[in-house]
């Protein structure tokens, strides 16, 4: 079957909020091993599509396939167990835990000890060492024992990325990883994401076109809950209807919603 080439596939996916379709009959394919970005103006339905693909939201209609298997009824936790792991738009760290504990928590399940009720986390070398390695890799060592909630915003995003990657996901979904970051953070996180994309399938929702142009091999443009265009950055950015969607100049394809 052809669908084995796709890590994630959406068929006729829709999501309705009280009469309003945030995502309407979207067919979408995420090719295995690619770095793929979803872009579009505000309110285009990018984040909703993303939430549907990761099963954070249940679709109103349509199906989602992972490695060719129907995963529509699964919960978000089960998607993660299948290796489909996401980040959140508003930096999602466990703010009451230290940076080290944030990473350890993520590592418990893969290490098979998340249901250990009486052992000490600190006595599990495989978890502790891996957490240390991740803190080194992501430049978080100096913050190891700081509460994640007290980190500067840019570091929170780095921590979230590190936590997400600690699961060694096969499919990685990043929801606006650059949101709210300063210029200096953007460069560093772009590099981290590029490195993370090696050997993985990566989908990101992002507003920063420079980042998208640098990272993504394939781009899907959404407008008003539907897919307007798809292709490489050059293909997409040369289309007049895409520019129209962004700048509002009345172009060909933008008239239909």
């Amino acid at each position, binding site marked *: 079957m052809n669908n084995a080439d796709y890590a994630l596939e959406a068929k006729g996916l829709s999501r309705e909020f009280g*009469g309003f379709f945030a995502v309407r009959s979207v067919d979408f394919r995420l090719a295995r091993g690619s770095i793929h970005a979803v872009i579009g103006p505000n309110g285009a339905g990018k984040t909703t599509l993303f939430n549907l693909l990761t099963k954070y939201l249940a679709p109103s209609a349509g199906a989602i396939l992972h490695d060719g298997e129907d995963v529509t009824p699964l919960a978000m936790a089960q998607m993660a167990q299948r290796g489909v792991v996401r980040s959140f738009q508003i930096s999602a760290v466990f703010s009451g835990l230290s940076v080290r504990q944030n990473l350890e928590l993520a590592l418990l399940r893969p290490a098979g000890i998340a249901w250990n009720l009486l052992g000490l986390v600190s006595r599990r070398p495989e978890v502790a060492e891996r957490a240390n390695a991740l803190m080194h890799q992501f430049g978080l060592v100096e913050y190891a024992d700081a509460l994640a909630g007290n980190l500067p915003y840019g570091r929170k995003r780095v921590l979230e990325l590190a936590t997400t990657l600690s699961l060694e996901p096969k499919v990685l979904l990043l929801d606006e990883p650059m949101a709210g970051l300063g210029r200096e953070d953007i460069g560093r996180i772009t590099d981290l994401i590029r490195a993370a994309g090696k050997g993985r399938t990566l989908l990101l929702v992002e507003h920063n076109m420079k980042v998208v142009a640098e990272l993504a091999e394939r781009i899907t443009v959404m407008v008003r809950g539907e897919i307007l265009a798809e292709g490489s950055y050059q293909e997409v950015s040369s289309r007049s209807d895409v520019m129209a969607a962004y700048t509002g100049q009345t172009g060909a394809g933008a008239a239909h919603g």
Partner: protein
Amino acid sequence: MAETLTVDRLEAWYGDSKVLHGMDFNIRAGEVVTLLGRNGAGKTTTLKAIMGLMERRAGSIRVDGAEIIAAAPYDIARKGLALCPEERGIFSSLSVRENLLLPPALAKGGMTIAQVLDLFPNLKERLDSQGTKLSGGEQQMLALGRILHTGARILLLDEPTEGLAPVIIQQIGRTIEKLKALGFTILLVEQNVAFASGLADRHYVVELGRVVDEIPGPELDARLDTLKTYLGL
């Protein structure tokens, strides 16, 4: 013309994250001014900060010379400001009529309800529907219409074209022209450059929480390429 709204060194935070790093701009009475910039640049936050909706803000915002940086939203409204928010803020537990009549008239000189409905005839037939059952365009008109009868003179409009079809966008553009002709002062946040270019007297370009450029209305088309760089297109 006198400056009616002056923003100096405006800073604002969401929790720990600083979003505005010293915005400086001003609007003169009767002007239409836009804030342009990519998503996340701080345009919406600027409007919210002016309206008193950001918990933590610093700097100076003056309306006709009066400082409002520390004022509560309901007092800021009494200075003649009104906000049409990005998400439109139509109340789902209210009918269209209730939504329209909700904001009380705080000053003289607002439009009458009949005038508002003449401006947006679509709303007339839908007055008894639930507010959020309207289409996106109708909701936008409702959100705009309900602040026109309050007597507010300075309108803060946050992306009124977002997610709307071109024919509706044109209609909203014509409405803003009419409002300008009626003497309203308008601060418009837009991503839709083409829409903004036809309407505004001046444009401010916002990047990473600061105003980085000011473009007079007539020069916008000539400087479209510069602008596209700013917008990251």
